[in-house]
Structure formats: C-alpha cells, structure tokens
C-alpha cells in the first residue's frame, strides 16, 4: 500500500437496513493518521455510513477498502480483528460491571501475556479512568463513560477508530475534552473517522470534513474551509433543492 493510498476508501458504497438505501453512492477517502469528521443534517445517513464501515448494515453495492483489502463482505468481528474499531452512539459499555471488569472483558482478544501492557497503554491515554477503576461503569458521568468505551476498544491497538456522535448527552466542557482526546490519538498515529453534530467543536480538531446530505457526499475538503463555505447553510437549512447543491461539486 503506497504512501499516497488512503487507509480507508469507500467506492460507490450503497447501504441501508434492508429497506430503501440510506447511504447512496458514497465515494470517500480517509488518509492515514488523519481525523475526518462526517457532518450534515439529520437523516442524511451519517451514522448509517459509519456503521456500514464496521459491517453493522446491509451493503447493497460498492466496496470498502481498508489497508489495501476490500472488507465489505466481512463481519464486524473480522473487521475488528483487522484493526477497525467502532464506538457506537449512546452508551455502549457494561453498566453493571466495574470499569476494571469492562476493560478486562474488552481485552479478551489480546494475548494474556500482553494484557497488562495493553491496560497500561489505555490508562496512559485516559488517566481520568485510573481513580475510577473499581466504580460501576453505570455510575460514571456521560463523558467518563465515553472515554471508557474508547479505552475498551483501543486495547487491541486498532489502526482506525470510528466514533459515532461522541458528544451526545455530554456537557460542552466534556464534549471539548473528548475531541481533544481524539486529536491526541490522531497525533499518536491513529486514523479517526467521527460522525458529529457539534460541527464547530469537531472541525476545530479535524484535518478533513465531509458534508453528507440525503445519503451522498455533498462536498468535502479541509476542515477549516468547510466551516467557512456558505453551502453549509444550504445543506442544513435548505433554500436550494439538494440536487443543485450536489451539482456544484
């Protein structure tokens, strides 16, 4: 895989949940060691696209190429083994088990000998979790649970982290902290693809951004240019019909 090839590429991806397709012909490249944020109005298919990357949806057509291999036919378990990890939307931990137990269960696929080392690695990334090890995951704050969920999947040192609306249910202070942590991971060599409502906070730390409208990429580019682009307003609040916005691409 040459240096210029993206780590993750979608070629004409069409996906949905069995009914009409929600993701319609998406072409997207995510270069390695960069953070890409998917934004766009609700119902545009952002979460569906992210879940399609992890194999949680039906793929009608198109390819997903990860590190040179097409993976659209593989199962979530297989994709996790090849180095893609997903932190789904909302709470996704084992609320009636302690933080330590959550992390231990999450490390089940790590060889036993290397588990302590993997635990130290994630506790190094998420020091706020250290004092909370013995408390029940359910009693943690929304933000702390979000960090726990990220720590859980990072023990296997995946190459690419998919994060679905990490800011949902978090206070503005926690939202900023979560995105700073994502940026830190990106600087440490992780490729991050986030779906996010809070466009300003996400784009502030992202390298690139793509605006999804009605299942298609309306336009994409470097994060700072996207915010300034007036097409954001039409994408979110309309004014032009979607096809005009798409033709400008």
């Amino acid at each position: 895989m040459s240096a210029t090839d993206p780590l993750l590429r979608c070629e004409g991806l069409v996906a949905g949940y069995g009914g009409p397709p929600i993701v319609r012909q998406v072409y997207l490249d995510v270069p390695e060691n960069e953070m890409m944020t998917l934004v766009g109005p609700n119902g545009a298919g952002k979460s569906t696209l992210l879940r399609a990357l992890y194999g949680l949806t039906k793929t009608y057509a198109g390819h997903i190429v990860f590190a040179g291999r097409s993976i659209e036919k593989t199962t979530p378990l297989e994709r996790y083994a090849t180095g893609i990890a997903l932190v789904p939307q909302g709470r996704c931990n084992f609320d009636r088990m302690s933080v330590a137990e959550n992390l231990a269960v999450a490390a089940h696929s790590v060889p036993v000998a290397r588990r302590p080392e993997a635990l130290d690695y994630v506790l190094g990334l998420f020091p706020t979790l250290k004092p909370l090890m013995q408390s029940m995951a359910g009693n943690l704050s929304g933000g702390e649970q979000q960090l726990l969920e990220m720590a859980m999947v990072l023990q296997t040192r995946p190459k690419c982290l998919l994060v679905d609306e990490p800011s949902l249910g978090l206070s503005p202070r926690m939202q900023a902290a979560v995105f700073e942590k994502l940026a830190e991971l990106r600087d440490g060599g992780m490729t991050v693809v986030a779906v996010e409502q809070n466009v300003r906070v996400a784009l502030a730390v992202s390298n690139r951004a793509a605006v999804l409208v009605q299942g298609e990429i309306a336009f994409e580019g470097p994060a700072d240019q996207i915010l300034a682009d007036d097409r954001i307003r039409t994408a979110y609040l309309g004014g032009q019909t979607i096809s005009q916005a798409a033709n400008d691409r």
Partner: protein
Amino acid sequence: MTRTSPVSWNALLAALLLAAGIIVPFLTQSSYFLTIGISAMIFTVFAMSLNIVYGYAGLLSLAQVGFWGVGSYVAALVVTRLGGSIWEGMIAAALVAAGGAILIGAAALRLSNHAFVIVSLCFTLLMQMLAQEWIDVTNGPMGIPGLPPPSIGFGEAVFSFGTPTRFFYLALVFATVSLGAIWIVVTSRVGKTLRMIKHDETLARSLGLRVTIWKLVAIALASVFAALSGALYVFYVTIVDPLIFDVYYTQVILVIVIIGGLGSFWPVVISGLLITVLPEILRTPNELRMISYGVILLLAVLIMPTGIAGLAGKMRARRTTPATSTAELLQ
C-alpha cells in the same frame, strides 16, 4: 379469503361437517369409535379456546388446561356436593373460569409477554397441586368419581345421555354451538381487533383501541370455552382427578393449533378432529403416543410454524403477487 361471499363458503363446510357428525352414530355402534368421536369434538373446542387467546390475540397462554381442569372440578362439585344438574355445573364452571381469568389476566398483563407465558404455566401447575393436596375440597389424588350422566327433565320424564350414542349427539350439539359462537366472534370486528393487537399493539393503541380490555376479553372468552369443554369431558369419563391438569392436554391443544395455523378457524377445526382421531386409531401405548406428539410439536415449530393455513396462504399468494424487484427497492 376467496372473493365469493364468505358466508356461503363457510356454510357449506359447516353443513358438511354437521352432516358427517349426524351420520357417524348410524355407521357404528361400537362405543370405542363413538368415544373417539366425542373426544375429537370436545378437544377441537378446547383447542379453539387456545386459538382465541394465542392464535387471534397473540397471547401465548398455558393456562388453558388450568381452566379446563378448574371447570371440570367446579362442575363435578356442583353436581356431587350441591346436588345441581350438569347444566348448572357447566354454567358455574364458565363463571368461575371467567372470573379467575380476569383476575389472573389483569395481574399478568402488567408484565411483558415473556413473564405472562410463565405465569400462565404456573397457574396450571398450581391448580394441579391444589387438586392433588387440598383433600377436603378436591378429595385429593382419588378425585371425584361416579359423576352421573347428563340428563334433561324431571321424575319419570327424564331423558339421560348415558349411552355413547346419545352423548355423541350431546357432544355434537356442544361442538356446533361452541364453534358457531366462536366463529361469529372471530370473523366479526372483534376478531379483527384481536388480530390488530397481535400484529402491533402500539399501533392499535394509537388508533384508540383499549388494548388491555380486549386482551382480557380474549383471555376470559378462552377460559370459558376451556372450562365448558373440561366439564363435558369429565362427565363423559365420569371421573375428575388431578390428572385432568396433565401436561399432555397442554401439548395436544398446542399441536392442534400450530398444525392448523395460528389465528385460522377451519384449519384448526380440521386439525383438531384429525389429531385427536389418528393416534386413537393407531392404538399406541400412552408414552409412545405422547412422545410422537412431542416430536410433531418440534417438527411443526421448526418446519411450518404457520401451519396448514400458512401453507395454503403461501400457495395462494405465490400465484397472485409478483415479488418486489430490486429496481423498485432502489427507487
């Protein structure tokens, strides 16, 4: 349902079965075959009672045998202890069953469907235990023997249904009246309402349906017909004992309803008659027959969960509507 007016198609089938019923006692005098006929008719009504609550309303209830047994005991006690006639016994059985059904139903409906099923089974198991151990009421394991045959009239002008032939006709009247009443209910708007609730309770509520009340109606209706069938059955076998609650009965009516097709009427009637008659003819010993029922239940659930009605429906559907093409899917 085919487009010809439904009443004529159903009337034809009803007349056919009724005629067959009337002829049978002329074809055979052997009490063995008449007994099979009587139990076939009673079990068909009993299975139809399960079909009301499970088939139409979508509530899998294993309490039917509980009401079947309670009805039997109540009728037997009314006749043997209170000196009433079987008719008063059956009315009492129906009322007690309906009352019990509404009480237990109201409590159990507060639960999710999962717990409802388990509570319904525990009701039957508890009734069996009470019949076994509440000696001074149920006479315990010995049960209540010597139940007099049903009869009409007083003093000399008494007409008794003591002989198998006469009881056969009594059972035929009972089956015709009961199945007729159930047919009127399930093919009317009440039946449609229950099927709406079975299909999507939330949607039914959003259209203004008092779902919980309709569920209680279904449970109570089912318990009444189960109790009546039980009462008539024990007066034919002339004894009621704790074995009336045996899991065998739960399993037979489940097999009948699933093979026939949940929420269908005529297929359940036909499968009810066949499934009670066949093993009797094969004369297999009790254990092997019940093992065969167990195997039939497993196969039915695995292979054709929608029963005969489902298969008939699929065949009719395959002929009329084309499958949705992927093009339309991508539209």
